[in-house]
């Protein structure tokens, strides 16, 4: 068995991880901090599960922003193959090279046909670096920066078993063989974050290789803190009102309960409206810090019309929007009022 490369984060501290989350306005509970610390220190992939919008992908982005050289993202989907995940050859370019009747080294621009030090520069082969299309997994393995990249394998549950097996092979030793080029091995193993929405069970082999983190829907307090950080232009009292209404809505049997990402979108929409209509643009949850607003919004209570008119930012299924009738709207406003009075 091959020796695994050593992790680049053997000395990372809890304080550094907390500072990274704070700097990126990611509200992380202690269990998230501890688990991320373990993943970095032990050099193990992190399997993050949770409802959509809980902040799984954002977690990888925070790590990339603070600890990694770059974020290499592999979005999984049904039918994802090794060619799309690892590497493939640029067949069109190869075909042109062959049709031109000369070797790549004879090109008019005189460019070097390969960057492979072991290759013969006169080698007319069209299976060289020049024709290689690097896909996310290979890119993460070949990163030559001082700090390893963060490899985000997003929504692994959308991919099929065959791709999971391929991923296991890569994660086992952080190396892969390209027949024409040889074995590519990561000098510094990437920080790996695998996310799943639990739409299907993952293989035991994958689970065995990962540390496990479940990101639960945020509590009222946590969601209030998230809104205060992510939407600073919104008054704190209004943030707590929105968080209370989102929490109340999650108690309903919705087709798609709102995640923290939807609540942030909703808060931005409300903030835009309360700032005088503005352009009404609603930022995405994945944006970093919100843009500076002209000033804090008013601290008046939310009007029922504002709530109803902006529910589309929070609820993404028509059945869920229709569920919010007058009675439920009153309950939402009552929850908001309680939150305001207790704040």
């Amino acid at each position, binding site marked *: 068995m091959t020796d695994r490369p050593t992790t680049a984060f053997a000395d990372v*501290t809890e304080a550094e991880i907390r500072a990274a989350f704070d700097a990126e306005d990611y509200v992380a509970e202690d269990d998230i901090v*501890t688990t991320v610390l373990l993943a970095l220190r032990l050099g193990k992939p992190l399997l993050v*599960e949770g409802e959509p919008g809980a902040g799984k992908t954002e977690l990888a982005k925070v790590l990339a922003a603070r600890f990694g050289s770059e974020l290499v993202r592999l979005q999984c989907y049904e039918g994802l193959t090794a060619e799309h995940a690892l590497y493939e050859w640029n067949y069109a370019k*190869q*075909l042109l090279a*062959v049709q031109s009747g000369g070797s790549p080294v004879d090109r008019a621009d005189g460019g070097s046909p390969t960057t492979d030090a072991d290759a013969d520069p006169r080698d007319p082969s069209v299976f060289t670096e020049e024709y290689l299309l690097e896909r996310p997994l290979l890119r993460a393995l070949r990163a030559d920066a001082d700090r390893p990249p963060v490899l985000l394998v997003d929504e692994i549950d959308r991919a099929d078993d065959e791709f999971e097996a391929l991923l296991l*092979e890569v994660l086992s030793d952080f190396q892969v063989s390209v027949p024409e080029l040889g074995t590519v091995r990561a000098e510094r193993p990437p920080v790996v974050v695998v996310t799943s929405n639990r739409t299907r069970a993952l293989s035991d082999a994958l689970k065995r290789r990962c540390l496990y983190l479940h990101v639960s829907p945020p509590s009222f307090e946590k969601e209030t803190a998230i809104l205060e950080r992510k939407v600073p232009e919104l008054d704190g009292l209004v943030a707590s009102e929105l968080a209370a209404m989102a929490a109340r809505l999650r108690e309903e049997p919705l087709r798609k309960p709102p995640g923290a990402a939807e609540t942030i979108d909703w808060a931005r929409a409300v903030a835009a409206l309360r700032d005088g209509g503005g352009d009404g643009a609603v930022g995405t949850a994945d944006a970093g810090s919100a843009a500076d607003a002209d000033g804090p919004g008013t601290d008046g209570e939310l009007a029922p019309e504002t709530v109803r008119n902006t529910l589309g930012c929070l609820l993404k299924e028509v059945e869920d929007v229709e569920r919010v009738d007058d009675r439920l709207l009153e309950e939402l406003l009552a929850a908001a009022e309680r939150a305001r009075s207790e704040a």
Partner: protein
Amino acid sequence: MTRPDGGPDIDAAGADGNGRLEDAVADHLRVELVRFVRALRRAGASVPANAATTAGRSLTVVGLGDRDRVRSALRAGLLADRADFEAFDRLFEEFWRRLAAGPDDGASPLDDVDGALAPFADSADEAGESDDAADGDDGGGADDSARSLTESFAAAVTDESSDDGDGDENEEAAARYSPAGAAEAVAGGFPLGSTDLDDAFADLTRALADVQGRRFGPGDDHPNVRRALRTSVAAGGAVLSMPRRERRRTAVRALLLVDVSRSVLDAVDRGFLVEFLRRARAAWGDNRVFFFDEDLREVTDAVDAPTAAEATDALDAAEARWGGGTRIGDSLSRLRETAPEAVDRNTVVFVVSDGLEMGDVAGLERELSWLRRRADRLLWLNPLATAAAYEPTARGMAAALPFVDGLFAFAGPDDVREMARQLRRQGAGGRVGYEFDPRRTETQRRTTESPAHTTNDP
């Protein structure tokens, strides 16, 4: 470290592994962690096979000073499913209480100690090498504390002292085979690291491969653009036809259940057995290895040691007992209860056993039925089947026969080679097994033709 009510900074709690807990305390921590893992499995939680080791390493990072950190670390290392959180939280309370109570001498891992948790090394040697000048005088306990915690967790499926696995004395006296034996060191005459198995094992892998690898072979699943490109060279770059290809099946997913009772070890060389298991781990990737006699214990990590010699040492360190009695049905029942995920519809199950069952045959049939339903194929490797006169008349073997896809001789590299040959030609479930072994038929023919056979003279 201090008690949870006043835990230290997380990074002062043992990340550098400079010091060591006193032996008794470290042992107490190991025992309680193993007990906790077992309790989780009994409660139905899906705990991966290597989880205890991962959790142990996690504790060396976060230390024991803060209860919530310990809870988070163990949850990240031991679980892989949100549904198990409730059982975890319930059992964690008991784990923490027992941990805080300390071993019998009253010392607790949660008390202030001069040092921290020993690092989880991959071998005892490595753990020993991790000591540095900061170590205090260990006296006689140094060797013990330098023993890798990983090895302790490799033995996580062995019974704790409270579990009495002794066989019945009457059974012991009555059994001519598989007497309940005492633990014995792993050793064998087969040269460790021998290359005799290389070709045979490669053949076996090719014969069994049923999991798609990344390599392509002839077929019609995908267009073979590369070949089209190459053939187009002769036509001046014009693609005249589109050859196709499909992925070769190159990988094997296996579960190896090895009977290490006395009767088996009398018939098969232990060195060969270890070498076979190591090659299976190296060549087949995702598979697990269990030893069984009167109980079942996983030895996958021990088999994975860097060298064959270290593997045998690790098996010793993992307290892999050799030479006990045989209760195949009970052992399979334990597999079903504790590690059902070890076998799925893609798994080839190897049972290395002589089939001399001391337990309940009806139970053996029940468990084999379950195993066969879950597995892709079930192959039985019997060291007694190397004899030309062998017939599977032992009650355990006879009961197992309807469930197996092939019963093969298994005592050395030649047997592996013959098994691979048969499987390649006939496939599992075809006309394969000891009865189709040409060496057996040749021996039988020579026996019948010999003068000694045709005369009744003494």
